[in-house]
């Protein structure tokens, strides 16, 4: 889960989950192209709540240079104190990884 500067509004920082890295081909939800190959130097981010998320399905792959930080823990409110797991939902796995 990473924190990046919004490509639409540079004053805003958004927090999304990284779904695919460069070279992966993924199936998109509501994007103008059904299948997208993430270009070199870019990543695909998505929010966990797919219907109501302003993420790569709206503005496409984002450049790695916009990445700011990685979210590791939730600190407040105390009843939601937890470590955030870097887990990929199984239905959002990329279709083809680029071989090294």
């Amino acid at each position, binding site marked *: 889960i990473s924190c990046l*500067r919004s*490509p639409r*509004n*540079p004053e805003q920082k958004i927090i999304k989950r990284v779904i695919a890295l460069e070279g992966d081909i993924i199936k998109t939800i509501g994007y103008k192209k059904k299948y997208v190959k993430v270009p*070199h*130097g*870019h990543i695909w981010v998505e929010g966990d709540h797919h219907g109501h998320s302003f993420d790569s399905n709206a503005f496409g792959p984002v*450049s790695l*240079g*916009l990445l700011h930080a990685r979210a590791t823990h939730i600190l407040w409110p105390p009843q939601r104190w937890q470590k955030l797991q870097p887990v990929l939902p199984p239905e959002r796995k990329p279709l083809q990884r680029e071989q090294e």
Partner: protein
Amino acid sequence: MFLNVLGKTFRFLGYTVQYGCIAHCAFEYLGGIVVCSGPSMEPTIQNSDIVFSENLSRHFYCIQKGDIVIVKSPHDPKSNICKRVIGLEGDKVCTSNPSDFLKSHSYVPKGHVWLEGDNLRNSTDSRCYGPVPYGLIRGRICFKVY
């Protein structure tokens, strides 16, 4: 004797850390010296020119059309590129090469800028990789040092 040396070492380390923090803040928020390489900004900036860039206008969002900016490369986040801002968000820009007969135009999307090198024939810029998000701009070049 030994405590004396230890004390001096710790003081030296303390000064080094303080200097490092101030230098990092200065480079990040104020500006710094940059060495430019490549022919894409000729004749304004030649190969291996040394210029001074300031980062304050990026933080206050007053980069204007015509500024020369240092931008993180969209394809390789570890390298920087130096180009001129031709269009801000909402502007209409010409996307085709000068040698094309039919010219195509498009609008720069919100939150992006259109960059072009001064040496149009020998420059990979927004005409190749499209508009660049504003968040990738590192600083604005104000004057040439050498």
